[in-house]
Structure formats: structure tokens, C-alpha cells
């Protein structure tokens, strides 16, 4: 009798235990299932660690700077995408070099060609131009013009072009056209920063209009090679059909995950460091990871693949954003091994609560690449103090960076901001 009672008690205890485990499991599964549903309906509350990071984005960015500064200088320099690179390090997106070669050959045969290189900020437009100078335009004089600052007034562009072509007293486009066409030799003009030649304002298109006139009248004498950021190009195409001025348009922002892997790994392979990728919690639990547990090499190959897939997806194939994210992922250096933490994108859910005025400022900056306070006044038709307040607020939150009074979007949040603006139909 006693043994039966013990048996029942034991059985009961076991049942209770199993029920508790099942309930815990079911509740965890249910919560996991509810998160995407809550997110869709807008009820999702961000868990504390991510929430604190997303609110204090500036602290996250400072941490990024600190982390990158802690890395060995030669390694950091390898990932400085603004620096000139050798041809072996170059990733040729969409066979751009061949396209330009064809355009150049056609121009040499008398066909009036002109080329535009279009891509997001940091996607490698300048690098492509550098490579084109080294590989294609080897037998022809080149004139370089870089519009790094906003140049939207006709006097400004005529003065800059006059200096570049060594023509004095240029007060009309025709003066410049005549001077260029009077030259004996044919030449290439590399004009970078087309996005800085306009201002989205009722009087902000005069510089660009002058440039179109100059390009169309000098096409036979000059091969125009220009670069323009993606969203400025899209805007100008819609309002005045910019692509009609160019016979060849090359895109640099179409890198796939294999090309992004190459951009990073070609640079990394120049260093002496080995790599060790760390799995995140979900990867650790995945079947793919578990079945490779007895083979460390396979695990590393798998983790590398997962890392670069996520990196490409979240950086939208943008090489500079990928490079910064890579440096940010280096957790620590153990001897000659770099430990790579799982890819963690910046969570900027706080963007969702920004008002429409602030979103329009971000859109204006994306359309122009960089804007000064006075320029923002003209673009948004605001007064000076309001523009200052809007820009400094975004700067203090880490969305914008400032260089000599010109504000530009932080590369680390570029993709997320873009996604939000597209979702709100502000950039289309």
C-alpha cells in the first residue's frame, strides 16, 4: 500500500514537472510567435538592451569610433575606402570598366559619347573613376574637376570650370564652349559631384542648366565622365530627364554578397591576421551549426557565410557601409587572430517617432549628399534659426555628421534612414 502511495506521489511529481516544463516551453514558443505579430501591428516593445542602444545612438556611434580607433592603424587604413587602391583590390560591379571602354572607343571613332557613374554615397564611384584613369584613359589628357561643395549658382560653376579649363573672364557658358571647341586636342573631363550642382529650390537649377548646355555643345571635343549620387540622379531624372544627356550610365551600387565578401576579404588578406567568427544565439541553436560541431573548419566557413549574407542584406551592397560595419564587428584581437562578433546592425527604431519635418530634412540631405544651414533654408523654405535647430538636433542624435559647416548623413544609419523614407513615400 505504502509503495503504491509512493509510486503515485512520484508519478504525480513527475507529471507536475513535465507540465511545468511543457508550459515554459509553450509560453516561450508563444512569445516568440507573438513578437513578429506585435511588430506588424505596432505593439512591439523593444527589449531593454536594444532599446537603450537605439535611443542613445550617439553613444553607440562613439563606441564605434572608440572600437575602430583601438584597431592597429595599418589594418584600419586597409579599410579606408576613400584612399586610392590598386587594380587587384578593385571589385568591378556590373562590368563597368568594359562599358566605359566601349563608350571611349565609340567616342574616339567620332560618336559623341558621355558617361555617368551613378551610385549611393560610399558605393565606390570615385574608386571606379580612379580605376578608369589607370586602365582605360591611358592615352589621353584628363582634366579633373571635383565639386565637393554645393555650387548651384551659374557664376560659381562658370568660375570653377573656367579655372579648370584655364579660361579667364567666363561670364557666359558660350565663352567656355568656344574656348573648349577652339582647342586642338581632344580630352577627357572627369567631373565628380554632379549632386552638388543643384539645390532643390526654385532658383537652384541654373548651374546644372549651364552644364547641360556646355556638355551638349562640346561632346565631340570632350569625353565627359561624371559621377552622381543615386538619389540626386533619380530626382534629376524625374524632373528634367538627366539620363538624356548621357550615352552610357554605369551603376556602382549593385554589389552582391560575393562581391561584398571580396571587398572585405581582399583587404583583410593584406594583413597578417587570421579570423575567428563567433556565432550568435540563434545560429548556435540552428541545426546547420550543430551538425558541423565536430568540424571547426566547416563551422568557421559556415559562420563566415552567414555573416556576409547578413552584412550584404543590411548594408544594401554599399561597400563603405560594409567596411565600417566590418571594423565595428571586430570584438577583440587575440594574438594574431581577429575575433569577429555576429553582425549587429544599428537599431534606430527611435527614427520611427521622428516628426515629418525631421524626415523631410533627412530626405533633403540624401538628395544633396551634403547641405549647409543656409542651403537647407533654401531647400526647405525655412528660416535660418529653424534650419539650425533641425540640423543640430539630428547631429546630436547621431544621424548627421558635420564637416566645415556641411552636414551629411552618418554612414552607419544610411541604410536604415533610407528604408524609413522609402516606407513613408518621401523618397521614391
Amino acid at each position, binding site marked *: 500500500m505504502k509503495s503504491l502511495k509512493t509510486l503515485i506521489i512520484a508519478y504525480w511529481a513527475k507529471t507536475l514537472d513535465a507540465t511545468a516544463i511543457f508550459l515554459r516551453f509553450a509560453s516561450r514558443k508563444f512569445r516568440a510567435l507573438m513578437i513578429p505579430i506585435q511588430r*506588424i*501591428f*505596432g*505593439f512591439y516593445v523593444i527589449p531593454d538592451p536594444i532599446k537603450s542602444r537605439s535611443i542613445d545612438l550617439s553613444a553607440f556611434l562613439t563606441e564605434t569610433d572608440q572600437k575602430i580607433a583601438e584597431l592597429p592603424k595599418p589594418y584600419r587604413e586597409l579599410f579606408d575606402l576613400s584612399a586610392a587602391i590598386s587594380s587587384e583590390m578593385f571589385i568591378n560591379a556590373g562590368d563597368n570598366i568594359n562599358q566605359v571602354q566601349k563608350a571611349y572607343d565609340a567616342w574616339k571613332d567620332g560618336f559623341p559619347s558621355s558617361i555617368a557613374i551613378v551610385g549611393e554615397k560610399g558605393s565606390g564611384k570615385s574608386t571606379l573613376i580612379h580605376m578608369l584613369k589607370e586602365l582605360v584613359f591611358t592615352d589621353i589628357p584628363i582634366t579633373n574637376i571635383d565639386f565637393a561643395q554645393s555650387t548651384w549658382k551659374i557664376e560659381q560653376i562658370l568660375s570653377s570650370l573656367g579655372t579648370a579649363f584655364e579660361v579667364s573672364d567666363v561670364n557666359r557658358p558660350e565663352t567656355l564652349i568656344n574656348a573648349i571647341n577652339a582647342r586642338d586636342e581632344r580630352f577627357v573631363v572627369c567631373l565628380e559631384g554632379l549632386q552638388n550642382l543643384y539645390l*532643390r*529650390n*526654385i*532658383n*537652384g*537649377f541654373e548651374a546644372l542648366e549651364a552644364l547641360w548646355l556646355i556638355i551638349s555643345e562640346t561632346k565631340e571635343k570632350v569625353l565627359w565622365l561624371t559621377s552622381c549620387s543615386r538619389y540626386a540622379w533619380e*530626382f534629376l531624372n*524625374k*524632373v528634367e530627364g538627366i539620363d538624356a544627356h548621357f550615352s552610357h550610365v554605369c551603376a556602382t551600387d549593385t554589389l552582391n554578397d560575393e562581391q561584398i565578401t571580396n571587398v572585405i576579404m581582399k583587404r583583410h588578406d593584406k594583413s597578417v591576421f587570421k579570423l575567428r567568427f563567433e556565432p550568435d544565439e540563434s545560429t548556435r541553436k540552428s541545426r546547420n551549426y550543430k551538425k558541423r560541431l565536430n568540424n571547426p573548419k566547416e563551422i568557421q566557413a559556415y559562420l563566415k557565410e552567414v555573416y556576409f549574407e547578413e552584412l550584404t542584406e543590411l548594408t544594401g551592397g554599399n561597400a563603405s557601409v560594409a567596411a565600417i560595419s566590418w571594423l565595428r564587428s571586430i570584438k577583440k584581437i587575440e594574438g594574431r587572430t581577429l575575433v569577429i562578433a555576429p553582425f549587429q546592425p544599428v537599431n534606430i527604431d527611435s527614427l520611427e517617432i521622428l516628426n515629418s519635418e525631421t524626415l*523631410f530634412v533627412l*530626405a*533633403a540631405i540624401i538628395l544633396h549628399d551634403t547641405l549647409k544651414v543656409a542651403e537647407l533654408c533654401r*531647400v*526647405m*523654405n525655412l528660416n535660418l534659426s529653424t534650419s539650425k535647430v533641425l540640423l543640430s538636433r539630428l547631429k546630436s542624435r547621431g544621424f548627421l555628421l558635420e564637416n566645415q559647416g556641411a552636414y551629411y548623413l552618418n554612414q552607419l544609419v544610411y541604410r536604415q534612414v533610407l528604408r524609413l523614407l522609402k*516606407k*513613408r*513615400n*518621401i523618397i*521614391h
Partner: protein
Amino acid sequence: MKKSIITFLLFLCCSVVVSAQIPNLNSVQPDSAATDSSSIVEGLPTNVVQFDELFSTGKIISALVLLILTFFFVRLVVFLLERLAENQSAYRLMIKRLIPFLNVAIWSTAIFIVIAGIIDPPIETVLTVGASIGIAVGFAAQDILKNIFGGFIIILDSPFQVGDKIEVDDYYGEVTQIGLRSTRIVTPDDSLVTLPNADIVNNAVSNTNSGALDCQVVASIYLPADSNISLVKEIAYKAAISSRYVYLNKPVVVITENKVMDKNYLLHLKVKAYVLDIRYEFLLKGEITELILTELNRRQLLPISDLTKQKEGA
């Protein structure tokens, strides 16, 4: 929200307990005093007994519980869909237009369950009661019925959806709700106007955006007939494309018309552009007008007003 859910759940529990108890009481009573009750029932006319069976307390409570449940369910569905619509900008209008459909569908299902599932009357009763109610209500509430039929026609014909900007009679605004009796719109000055559905069905309805997030905005400006037309048109076009509210995936068009006003010839400048979200409709219209007038003033292309002349004279 939480409070109302808790109250509702408490109410639901009480109702279930009460409805469970009532049939028991009914079933216990005949057992304890079978002879008395049977004699009482025998004494009553047959139709009264049938009516008593048809509308027993249990059935009424069950029907009420179901209707209350439906009411809260409809509110929950509407609340969730509105949240979803606000959270998914691209599908906002599509989700919002589902709301009136679901509203009608859920209520129709609930009423069907009450009649066919709970009350379950014989077909003769349904026909008789239906005809009687039909005649009585038909005479008493002709206008309401007109509106309800109007509501059905609006839902089936879909001349507009929730989220569209419509103009009926002198009222212009965004449709916020399509009900069975009336349709509600919010005018630009934030007034809520309730339009009876019968009036909407019998009048011409102008729909500005027909379900799209963008809609066309027309800014009109009157200029002297001797204005430099090509220059003015160029200014107007640049003003439209410079506005932050303009949707550039659709064309911006500037047209001119000749108008006669007070025996004077005028140039009527019309700028047609699309706004990126109908919420900014009037902001776009205002901004285009302001930009054009400011630029025309700056270039001294507008005639000087009498007031300015007086000021300058002084």
C-alpha cells in the same frame, strides 16, 4: 483597453453562469411540481406556449451574450486593423477599406447565428414576423432603410473607400468611416461631417485619389494677360518640383487658360502636381502658390497693388 477587456471578460463569465443556471431551473421546476405546472400550461393558449418556448430566458441571454461578444469582437478587429494600417504606410488605404466590409460581414454572421442557431423559429414564424416587422419598420423608418440600402450599395459599388478624399454636395474631406447608415468625412478644417448614405447614392460623388496614397493637387494663379507665359510656366514648374511634398513618380503639368473677369483678360495658370501623401494635400497646394508668387514678386512680374502704390506714394 485593458480595463474594458477585463470588464468584458467578467461580464461574459457572469452571463455564461446565469445562462447555464436558467435551463436547469426550468428543468427542475416541472419535476418538483409536475402536475401543477402541466395543468397551468394546459390552460394557456398554444401560441403563448410556443412564444414562451421561442423566447425563453436562456435563449434571450445567449443571444445577448453573442451580440455583446460580437460588438467587442468588431471593436477589436477595427482597432487592430487601424493599428496595422498606421504601421504599414504603403498599405494604409487598402487595410482601411477592409474595415466596413468586415463590419458588415461580422454583424450579418452574428445576426444569422442568433436567428438560425439560437432562437431557431419555425419558417412560418420567420415569414410572419419578418413581414410584420417589414411593414411596420418600412412605414416608420423609410429614411433609415434608404440609408441602410444606400450603405450596401456604397460597399458593393465602391465609388470610394475609407482614406479617399471625396466631395459630395458642398462637403470635401477624407473618408474616415463607411457605416451602414451614414458615411463620415473629415474636412480640411478638421470638422467631422456625417453624410447619410441615401444622399451619397443620389448625388454625384467626386473621388480625388481613388485608393492611391498620392492624389492630384491643382494650384491656380491669376496673372495679367500680358505676362511672359514661357517664363511664368518655367517658374511654376520649378516651384512644383521644389516642394518637399510633391510626388515625382507622376508628372507635374503646367497649363494656361485665357479668362475674362470684370471685362479684363487674365492668364489663368494651373499647376497640376501629385502629393506624396493625401495628408499633405493642402500643404503642397499652399507651398506651390507661395513659391510662385514670391518668385514672381521678386522678379517684379506681378502688377503692383493699390495698397503698395499708396505706401510707395506716402
